[in-house]
């Protein structure tokens, strides 16, 4: 009897982390599927189509990876922020403004300096733009303790409007009818890999997430940020410069979000149209939470989500299930994640 008990315990010890991750996904898919049924659509057909289109088809898979590039950068930025205890909900504004500046600067710069230099400078510019856009919320939090949720949200609203103003006035391409920046020619964008449409930005995105994970878990800098995030009072007690670290955490997180904007412009669009706002920020939040801020997990979830987005876009045309459904799934995912965490916590307390 005893050894059997121990064996069961061993297995459940391994299974627990897996269940904690898989369960919310399954539950979200099931409940979402029920909603589809109520609306008269076949969920299994939908899911199968999404997987087929987003993952199993070669063109679809490429599109998925390309879509993942900016998401990975934003995710990297969120990992830094969340591990440092900062709710950087301003990633959308940071992303957008950086994209606009890169779009504006890219073409003219490309005419005077070598292409690779232009790309490097654009990334740096994007990082700087994002970081600068986070300065005000960082200041208000570090120096006055003002909750960053509202300040970063407001900066996003301002940023979206500012981006539009920039596109329509100073950076406007006079030769196009629709307000947008001068388009960067396809050959001048981020080089593609082999014979695919997968551009190097995807690689960069993967590197960004892995780098951030390593930074946060294996360096003194990362540990300092985590301490500030976990218990700011203990951080003061431990002699850390909480104010400086807050600024740095904001800046780094926003810089990564900005680079996400750069990768999207330099890799795919080459230009920014007025009123363009993919709003990847909030969508990536649950993915980062699901992965519990872990690098590899984040990459997995971002790819999973990219499949969902690409497949879902295609499905909306073919199966008549609009992409709004993906939003519903994301909401459900987060909810079930929180519930599973809670149950796990209770189960742990009961058996300790």
């Amino acid at each position, binding site marked *: 009897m005893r050894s059997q008990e121990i064996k069961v315990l061993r297995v459940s010890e391994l299974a627990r982390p897996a269940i904690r991750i898989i369960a919310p996904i399954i539950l979200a898919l099931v409940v979402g599927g029920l909603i589809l049924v109520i609306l008269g659509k076949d969920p299994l057909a939908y899911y199968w189509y999404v997987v087929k289109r987003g993952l199993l088809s070669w063109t679809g898979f490429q599109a998925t990876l390309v879509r993942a590039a900016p998401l990975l950068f934003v995710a990297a930025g969120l990992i830094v922020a969340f591990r440092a205890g900062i709710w950087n909900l301003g990633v959308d504004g940071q992303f957008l403004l950086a994209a606009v500046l890169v779009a504006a600067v890219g073409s003219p710069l490309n005419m005077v300096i070598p292409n690779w230099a232009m790309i490097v400078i654009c990334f740096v510019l994007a990082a700087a733009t994002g970081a600068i856009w986070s300065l005000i919320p960082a200041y208000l939090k570090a120096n006055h303790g003002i909750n960053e949720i509202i300040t970063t949200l407001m900066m996003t609203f301002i940023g979206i409007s500012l981006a539009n*103003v920039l596109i329509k006035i100073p950076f406007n391409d006079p030769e196009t009818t629709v307000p947008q920046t001068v388009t960067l020619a396809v050959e001048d964008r981020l080089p593609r890999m082999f014979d695919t449409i997968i551009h190097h930005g995807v690689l960069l995105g993967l590197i960004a997430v892995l780098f951030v994970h390593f930074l946060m878990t294996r360096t003194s800098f990362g540990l300092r940020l985590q301490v500030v995030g976990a218990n700011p009072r203990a951080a003061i007690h431990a002699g850390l410069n909480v104010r400086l670290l807050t600024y740095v955490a904001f800046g780094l997180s926003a810089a990564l979000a900005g680079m996400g904007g750069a990768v999207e412009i330099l890799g795919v669009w080459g230009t920014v149209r007025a009123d363009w706002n993919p709003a990847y920020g909030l*969508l990536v939040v649950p993915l980062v939470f699901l992965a519990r801020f872990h690098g590899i997990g984040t990459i997995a979830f971002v790819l999973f989500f990219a499949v969902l987005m690409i497949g879902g876009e295609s499905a909306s045309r073919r199966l008549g299930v609009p992409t709004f459904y993906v939003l519903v799934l994301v909401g459900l995912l987060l909810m079930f994640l*929180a519930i599973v965490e809670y149950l796990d916590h209770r189960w742990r307390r009961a058996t300790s």
Partner: protein
Amino acid sequence: MFELLTETFVTALLFGAVTAGVPLLLAGIGEQISEKAGVLNIGLEGMMLVGAYTGFCAAYYFDSFWLGFLFGGLGGVSVAMLMVLFCVILGLNQIVIGIALTLGADGLTALLHHFQFSRTYPRLSAVEPLIIPIIGDIPYVGEVLFHRHPVVYLSIALVVVLVWLFKRTYIGLNLQAAGDVPAALDVTGVSVRSTRTWAVIATGFLAGVGGAFLANIGAGIFVPHMIHGAGFIGIVLAMLARGHPTWVLYGAGLFGISLSLTTALQVAGFNIPTDVVQMLPFTMVIFMLILLGRNSYLPAALTLPYIRGER
């Protein structure tokens, strides 16, 4: 500059301001009630969206604005119930759940709209205003404030009622205690859980009515994502208002004016870009925060779940 202040311009501006401001006011007041009790309700936008949808459907199918508002409120309450279950009862992270509810509600309402109305895009007929005599004839403000649907009057009256409630009744006291040191309230025999539950439900109802107002009166139609950040503005208003309902009123008015400024300017013949004008209220708030730079007053137990007797 004074040519700007023609009666047409001012009236158009203020009229639009009230139309834009009422949903903000309701959302902000609702959020304030929750926050006072210690619940940070990031799902406010989601509640407004569902309220807008159910409110529109009710007004459309029952051909009644009042029913529209009622069902709008109930729609908001349904989302609020989820918030109560996850955050007040189970004690899950309020911010994560709030984001989840907003995203989910956004997707769900858009999805339902797609299957129901995307072919027809029905509109509601214009609302019959309730004109208050005498004061309704005051130039400039008369038409603006007193030729409106009764919900507008009720919303402003709500502010007054709330001020009284917060100061003079146990409602205000209990809310404040629940948000400050919930255990202090619990040991006196008043359940923190039910205090917070009612607070969140009230928020849901008000947000839902606000959303319904936006759809039925502001636009006359439901469109996906139509709340467009009004819920988040409501959260901002509540956080800045330091617990005073009147401040939410002023803030909603200010935001309302700036939101309505573009159309009004266009009516008056000026062509300032919409985007610049839309930036104004937020930029103003940020400036104020930087200048005044004090800690925004937030209840001590905000976002902290309360579990009785927790060791």
